[in-house]
């Protein structure tokens, strides 16, 4: 205690800082940094969990790049991103832009759009899976039948299954994007709009020249945030294709599902770790590219 009292104020600060950081430091080293290093290490090894770990260099990566399933999965993962991000952001922006102008029952309407965000992806995957069933069970096909429109194969078709699985993911994320857009819209000073109106600028020009440029920080955040979400899609795919995960014929399999399969059904830990490293690099490159492109404009 006397030792502590003899310290200067700035020395005391250092002591206190590390008292505060001691437990978290242990956590971050053992649960974040060490596992990251370990994942990279295992990706260069051959290991089926029971046997010995043998060093194989870049064999796992070579195997991965020669695996036709990986390229299929890689394409699917990007399809989720390329369809999911623009579609969800455009819908979210249009809705937010309009809700912002409505005053009657403003809170209720906002809540209606936000509610899906509060649900669990697993529960909703099953609800949507039921919607997609063929007649007489599925809601969508039943509805089409009442309109005398031919049936659509949603989850059993190799072309329709991926967008069908993406739909609930977009739906659930909209609420978050809408309220973030609305907060962004509110932060634009009204004086800009008043000036534009006095100058006789058309509403369309106001949107393109004032609203969207001033909304850029919000747009950048949402693009990066939702892209990461779509690249990591798993819950919906896993639950909507439980009888044949990632099917039909791997047409819906995203990278995370491939990782899960390789690691916990095939127990090929080295190969799965190599896939996780690829996932990490994909996320990193996509985020950096988006930041780069959107910031420059």
């Amino acid at each position, binding site marked *: 205690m006397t030792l502590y009292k003899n310290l200067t104020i700035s020395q005391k600060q250092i002591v206190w800082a590390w008292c*505060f950081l001691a437990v978290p430091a242990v956590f971050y080293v053992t649960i974040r940094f060490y596992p990251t290093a370990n994942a990279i290490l295992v990706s260069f090894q051959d290991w089926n969990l029971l046997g010995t770990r043998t060093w194989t260099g870049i064999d796992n990566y070579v195997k991965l790049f020669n695996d036709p399933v990986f390229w299929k999965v890689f394409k699917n993962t990007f399809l989720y991103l390329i369809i999911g991000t623009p579609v969800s952001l455009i819908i979210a922006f249009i809705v937010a832009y309009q809700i912002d102008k409505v005053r009657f029952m403003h809170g209720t309407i906002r809540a209606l759009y936000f509610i899906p965000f509060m649900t669990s992806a697993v529960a909703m995957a099953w*609800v949507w899976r039921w919607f997609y069933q063929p007649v007489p069970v599925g809601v969508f096909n039943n509805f089409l039948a009442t309109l005398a429109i031919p049936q659509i194969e949603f989850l059993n078709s190799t072309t329709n299954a991926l967008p069908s699985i993406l739909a609930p993911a977009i739906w659930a994320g909209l609420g978050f994007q809408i309220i973030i857009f609305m907060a962004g819209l509110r932060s634009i000073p009204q004086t800009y709009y008043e000036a534009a109106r006095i100058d006789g600028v058309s509403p369309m020009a106001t949107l393109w020249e004032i609203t969207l440029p001033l909304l850029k920080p919000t747009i950048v955040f949402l693009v990066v945030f939702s892209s990461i979400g779509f690249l990591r899609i798993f819950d919906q795919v896993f639950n909507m294709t439980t009888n044949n995960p990632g099917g039909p014929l791997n047409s819906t399999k995203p990278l995370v599902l491939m990782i899960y399969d390789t690691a916990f059904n095939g127990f090929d830990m080295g190969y799965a770790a190599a896939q996780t490293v690829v996932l990490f690099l994909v996320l990193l490159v996509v985020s950096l590219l988006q930041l780069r492109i959107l910031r420059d404009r």
Partner: protein
Amino acid sequence: MSATDLTIKPTSEALLKTSGNAGVRPPRNYAQFIRWMLLFGGGILMVMPIVYMLSTSFKFPFEVYNLKLIPEEPTLENYQLVLEDGRFFNWFTNSLVIAVLTTVSNVFFDSMVGYALCKFKFPGRYIVFIAILSTLMIPTEMLVIPWYLMSTKLGWLDTYWGIMFPGMMTAFGVFLMKQFFETVPDDFLEAARIDGLNEFQIWWTVAMPLVKPALAALAIFVFLGNWTAFIWPLIVTNSQELYTLPVGLTTFSVEQQVEWELIMTGAALSTLPTLVVFLIFQRFIIRGVVMAGLKG
């Protein structure tokens, strides 16, 4: 920007419009009406999946094929069947305990780290901050395999701790709390220091109450994230008694196969708790999510 001004709508826009071109008012109201109807209709469409889920959970099997929202013969039989199973109570408790404990841990430790990084001057402060922030770039899926190996070695498989440990602290929380502690004036802390409080007391009794809205926002995010977490609980649990609600629901639904009314009941049971909480604290939750989203 502060989230508190969410509800304030400047009236200048309306004023300008009515005085500037008063003659166009009726069509504008007409357009406004259409806009409102479209938005409201869209909103109803957004909640339709949830409404259908609830409606079907009160239907007998023979009515599942009916598109009507209100069951002709409403029944509680599905809920009886699902709850008699007993596992749902179990999964519900697991999810609740895990989500609450992780939330408490995050609120405590994330704000502790955020505070230390914000208010203490010490060598390496910047490096520590960057190191923690860099973990945001690492996807959970990359760590799942090492965590699994770790859990196997240390006997954490199939335990609450095993499910919880990866999420006990988050870099996102640290970043959020650091941002908010910046708004706490150093004078307050200095005053408390002169009053003889130690640094821990200053953090806990002076600084923490000043960032309550941020703590609530963080708590909402962490709770929701853990309540709906799927991939890690799926990997780390083997026995059904330790499943969380989402993992349990998957198992249950796979067992039921085509008994959609039972699957919908299970889905309803796992969705209702967060839904009810949302309906009660609606404004508060939306504000919290905006705050966490914008600052984090």
